[in-house]
C-alpha cells in the first residue's frame, strides 16, 4: 500500500466494519435521502432535535467504506451537540473535504472526523465522504421548519 493508506485510515476502516448508530429510528423530526448519481450510492438520514440540541442521527444506506464510515462518524460526532455547533462542525467538515488537501483540519472542532482529511486528496471520493453529511444538513434544515416534509425525500 502506498498513498492509499492516507485514505483508508485505521479509524475509517473501524467505523466501516463496526458502524455506530446505524439503522433508522423513531422518533425523528426530519429525514433526507441523497443519491450519488455517479455510482448509485444512497443514504437516508433522520435527525431528531430537542431543546436546540441534536438528540439522534439515525441512518441507512448502501455505499463504499468512505460513505459508510462517514455516516457512522456523523452519528458519533453530532449526537448531543447544540444545533449551532453541529452546523459549524458540518461546515468545517465540508470545507476540509473540498479543500484538496490544503485545509488544515482542526481536531477540536471535528473530533474523529479529522480522519477523513486524507479523502480531500481523492476528489472522486469527496462525494462519498460528504453524502451523509449533506443529507444531514438537508434534514436539519427541514427540522427547523415546523411540520415540514417529515419523511419526505430530498
Amino acid at each position, binding site marked *: *500500500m*502506498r*498513498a*492509499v493508506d492516507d*485514505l*483508508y485510515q485505521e479509524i475509517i*476502516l473501524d467505523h466501516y466494519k463496526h458502524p455506530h448508530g446505524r439503522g433508522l429510528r423513531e422518533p425523528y423530526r426530519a429525514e433526507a435521502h441523497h443519491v450519488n448519481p*455517479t*455510482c*448509485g*450510492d*444512497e443514504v437516508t438520514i433522520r435527525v431528531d432535535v430537542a431543546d436546540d440540541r441534536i438528540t439522534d442521527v439515525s441512518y441507512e444506506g*448502501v*455505499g*463504499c*467504506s*468512505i460513505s*459508510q464510515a462517514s455516516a457512522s462518524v456523523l452519528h458519533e460526532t453530532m449526537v448531543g451537540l447544540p444545533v449551532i455547533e453541529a452546523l459549524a462542525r458540518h461546515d468545517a467538515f465540508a470545507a476540509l473535504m473540498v479543500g484538496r488537501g490544503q485545509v488544515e483540519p482542526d481536531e477540536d472542532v471535528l473530533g474523529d472526523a479529522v480522519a477523513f482529511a486524507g479523502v480531500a486528496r*481523492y476528489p472522486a*471520493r469527496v462525494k*462519498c465522504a460528504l453524502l451523509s453529511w449533506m443529507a444531514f444538513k438537508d434534514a436539519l434544515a427541514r427540522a427547523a421548519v415546523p411540520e415540514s416534509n417529515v419523511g419526505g425525500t430530498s
Partner: protein
Amino acid sequence: MTATLPMYDVQAVRADFPILARQVNGAPLVYLDSAATSQKPRQVLDALREHYEQRNANVSRSVHALGTEATEAYEGARARVAAFIGAATAEEVVFTKNSTEAINLLAHAFSERSIDPRFRLGPGDEIVISEMEHHSNILPWQLLCERTGATLRWFGLTDDGRLDESDLDALVNERTKLVSLVHVSNILGTVNETARIVARAHQVGALVMLDASQSVPHLPVSVSELGVDFIAFTGHKMCGPTGIGALWGRYELLLAMPPFLGGGSMIETVTMQRSTYALPPMKFEAGTPPIAEAVGLGAAVDYLSAVGMEAIHQHEVDLAGYALGALATVPDLRVIGPQKTEGRGGTISFALGDIHPHDVGQILDNEGVEVRAGHHCARPVCARYGVPATTRASFYLYTTTDEIDAMVRALEKARKVFG
C-alpha cells in the same frame, strides 16, 4: 489457460499508444477501462495535429483552397467511416457529437405530427428497449414517451446475463414502432444475437436501432448484414477523439425524418418566414460540425482496419477467456454476466465479496490498475442483479494478459484491506 496469444502482436500495437508508457501512483499504468473510453494511437493524434496545422478551415461553405481541403478531409472521413460499417453510401452516415446525441436525434424524429407513418408516435404506440441498456438508450425513449404519450416496454434479462427473448412475440407487436437495443453490453460484456428480434420487428412493421457503441469498436460490424435500420456509435471508444459520434441510417429513412437541430448548413433556403432543409446527412448536421474530430475518427478507422477487426475481436475473446479463468481463482469473486467466452466480448463486471466497488477500484488504482467502479450508466442492470454497483474491467486491442495478472494481484490486496 494460455498466457500468449499467437498471431497478434500486442506489443507492436502498444507501442502506438503513448499514454501506455505512463505511471500511475508509482506503478505502470494498467488501463482496463476501455469500455468507458479508449486510448488513442499516435496515428490519430498526428492526424488531428496535421489537420489543424495544415488545413484548418470551416467546411462546405467556402470556395477557397483551405476550405476545400478541409471539406475533402471531412467528407473523406465520412466515406471511410461508412465503409468501416458496411454502409451503402457515405450519405448514410450523420456525424454527431457522440452516441448519445445520435440516439436522441432518432428519438426526436418521432412525434404525433409526423407525416411519415413510421415516425408517427402517440398514445397506444410502443417503443421496445431492454433492461440491458446504457442510460443513453433509456432516457431518450423515456423523454419521448413523456412527450408523446407512447408506452415504453423492455426485454428482461436472464440470470446468466442475456436478453430474455421468451416473450418476443408479445413484446414486439403491432403497436411497436421501434425496437432499440444495445448490441454489446457495456456492463455485462454480452454480445446480443439480433437476428430473431430484427425479423420479428420488421414483421410487425417496426424500425430497429442498435446501440453499437460497444460493438463497432470491438467487432467487425456490417449494417447490411445486421439488417437493421439505424445504428449509433461513438468515436472516443474506438481510438478516435472525443466530441464525435455517428448515426447511421438507411438513406430512405433519413430522407423521411424531420430535422433535429436547426442552424447553419442544414438548410436549403432561409427566409424570416420559413425555411427548407438540405438533404441528409447535412439536414442533421446543424452548425459547424466536429471537423477535426471527424478527421481523427477517419484516422482511427484506418488504424483499426490495418490491425484488423477480426484480429481485435479474437484478441479480446482470448483475453476474456484468460480473465474469466484468472478471476475464478479469486475467493468470493462473482462474475456478473456471461461466464463463458461464447457470445461475449472483453468487458467483465464482478463483485468481490461484499467489498464495495469503489473500494476495490481505489485499491486497484493504488497499484496502477484502472478499472471502473459504479453503475456504468446502466443502473437497471445493477438492480436486476441485486448489486448497487460493480467493478468492471474492460479490454481492448492493447490489453495484455500481464495486465490481467496485475489486476488479479491487486484484487488480493483489496481482500486483505477489507477482509
